[in-house]
């Protein structure tokens, strides 16, 4: 059995995970080797060409198939994971961060490449279990448990759906559609299955949040749309639209209310994330060939926004005692660069104009409003929820930018290294560039969507 491109990708990711696992006691060495290995994988993935022979890999009679769309997706996933590892050099993460991230990427690769679909779901269940390890931090396990439970329920529903789709019985169609919608709503944290998102923001490290809600969600969107493209009648059934519409609408309302009442940055970011994910969910109401491009764009810009927020908050939280908005009074003036990056990140997450997140939000709102079965109600609800988010962000940022005495507390040493400073400047410049030229992200999403649709 000779290795072809899918096999080499898996072997590369698993080997990288093993190497960094062996180095996990030395966190900087693990992070540095993660950066190098991710870079090598990216270069290799960029250079490979796919044809009928090299794109297929057989394992115990099951086929792993690498399409051009999946190759492009993994170019992004591996590059983005490399960026996270670079940041983990500057702001050290837990000892499992690098190896588990790489192992999750390997399982996501299996999930997307393997045929039949049922094995992809099983790979997802294993990936979700590893993600729980990644989420846990300092003995706080509430978010990890919640995520694990939700992911397992969604996975089990998809296993049942797989059998129902294969059975192809008219009597089961209605049940299949309801189960599919339910599974997708759970995977995208739709109401009432959103309970893990706020816990995640409170407990997990900012880099893990960016990985989970930016990169893993993007892979899941690929998975979800692959199923919808293979069985287009699922989206056409009224029950699907109804469940998704109600869930995304209520999720947006909840997010808006939570943003209005947020008293600290964790809760504020959690509510903005919910709002963004309600947009992702609402995009399931658009036909695959229309909504696919925007559905890809939204998690890509979400990742960039979360990365910026993580960069800024990583700089600030190194010194900051726990507390609500008031505890940050005056910090913006003391640390202007960190504050600028952090503020730009959360404004992007909100999707305001002149930020990175605007391109995705605007395209999504326009597209959703154009759907005859949706009408204007859902876009109006999303806009109102954004209003709640704007008020929440204003409440959050005003004490940060206000004048005030900064209390560092006992034993805090101010230590902004040159490397951290460079990362902050680079992050802010990159963010501003992406905000000024949104076509960079749009073009990538367009290419990814088109290649995927053509390949599959």
């Amino acid at each position, binding site marked *: 059995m000779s290795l072809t491109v899918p096999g080499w990708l898996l072997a590369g990711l698993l080997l990288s995970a093993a190497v960094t696992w062996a180095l996990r006691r030395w966190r900087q060495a693990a992070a540095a080797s993660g950066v190098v290995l991710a870079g090598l994988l990216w270069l290799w993935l960029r250079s490979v060409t796919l044809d009928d022979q090299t794109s297929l890999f057989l394992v115990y009679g099951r086929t792993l198939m690498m399409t051009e769309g999946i190759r492009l997706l993994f170019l992004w996933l591996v590059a983005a994971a490399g960026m996270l590892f670079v940041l983990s050099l500057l702001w050290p993460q837990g000892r499992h961060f690098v190896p588990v991230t790489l192992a999750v990427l390997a399982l996501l690769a299996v999930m997307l490449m393997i045929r039949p679909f049922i*094995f992809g779901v099983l790979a997802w269940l294993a990936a979700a279990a*590893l993600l*729980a390890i990644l989420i846990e931090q300092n*003995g706080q396990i509430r978010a990890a*448990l919640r995520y694990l439970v939700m992911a*397992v329920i969604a996975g089990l529903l998809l296993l*049942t759906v797989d*059998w129902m789709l294969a059975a192809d*019985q008219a*009597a089961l169609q209605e049940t299949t559609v309801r189960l599919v919608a339910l599974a997708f709503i759970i995977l995208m944290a739709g109401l009432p299955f959103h309970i893990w998102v706020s816990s995640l923001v409170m407990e997990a490290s900012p880099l893990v949040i960016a990985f989970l809600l930016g990169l893993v969600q993007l892979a899941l969107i690929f998975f979800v749309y692959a199923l919808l493209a293979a069985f287009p009648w699922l989206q056409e059934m009224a029950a699907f639209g109804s469940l998704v519409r109600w869930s995304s609408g209520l999720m947006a309302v909840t997010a808006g209310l939570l943003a209005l009442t947020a008293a600290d940055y964790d809760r504020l970011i959690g509510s903005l994330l919910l709002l963004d994910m309600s947009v992702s969910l609402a995009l399931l109401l658009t036909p695959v060939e229309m909504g696919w491009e925007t559905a890809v764009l939204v998690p890509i810009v979400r990742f960039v926004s979360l990365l910026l927020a993580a960069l800024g908050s990583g700089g600030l939280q190194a010194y900051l005692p726990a507390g609500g908005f008031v505890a940050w009074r005056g910090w913006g003036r003391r640390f202007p660069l960190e504050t600028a990056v952090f503020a730009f990140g959360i404004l992007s997450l909100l999707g305001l104009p002149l930020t990175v997140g605007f391109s995705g939000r605007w395209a999504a709102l326009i597209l959703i409003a154009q759907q005859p079965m949706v009408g204007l109600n859902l876009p109006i609800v999303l806009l109102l929820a954004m209003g709640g988010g704007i008020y929440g962000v204003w409440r959050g940022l005003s004490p940060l930018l206000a004048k005030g005495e900064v209390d560092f507390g006992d034993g805090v040493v101010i230590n902004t290294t040159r490397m951290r400073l460079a990362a902050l400047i680079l992050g802010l410049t990159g963010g501003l560039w992406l905000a000024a030229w949104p076509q960079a992200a749009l073009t990538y999403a367009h290419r990814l969507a088109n290649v995927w649709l053509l390949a599959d």
Partner: protein
Amino acid sequence: MPTIFEWIDRLSFLRGLPGVYLLLGTAVFIVFVGDWRLMLLAFAGQYLAAGLLFVEALDPRLAIVKVLAGWFVCLILYMTGRQAADSGGGNGRFPVNTRAVQITNLGQGNKVRGSAYRLLSTLSFRLVAALIILLSAWVLAQRPGYFLPALPPELAYMTFAVYGLIGLGLLGVSLTADPLRAGLGVLMLMTGFELYYSVLEQSVAVLALLAAVNLILALVIAYLTQARYARPMLEAEE
């Protein structure tokens, strides 16, 4: 040495509805008992009862593999429980960042001692909630509209087992912040699902991968339990 088939013959009095009652009885016991050792003992019994129900849908040799995988899960969790108890999980010591409200929820405060073992002080609430779930599962299992698709009529009693076990698993997860206890809820949910799925899908590869997923889940639950109770002690030692 008796063969698998002889063992199944000897336990034939537990097949069918009696097996369902044993399965759900152990699930109710897990939901309300406070001591982790009794919980795991009941959990091992639950895998045996599930194995007897699996025999109805699968080749007995595959069913026994499922029981063995389940017992292996119990072994992993027993070792974890032992280590967590040794390093303070059972003695009221918690990670440094645990908030007061979590200590109240997790600690000795909500347990009462009864002989050498502990019972949860929310026992009556848990029992009532478990009974409501069992009643709902039974009512649903009687209604044709809620029969599980593709389940042969002679296995109709499995509907009660599947609904009941999934419901009790979810109850177990929702009533606690303790990773070991919540983890057993997740595994019960998996077992409930697998009882149904084994009727639908009998491919050996899928069954093997499901067993592997169960083992991965057990390892993750073990990790989270260690992270919750044992790791601060280890880090202090380092």
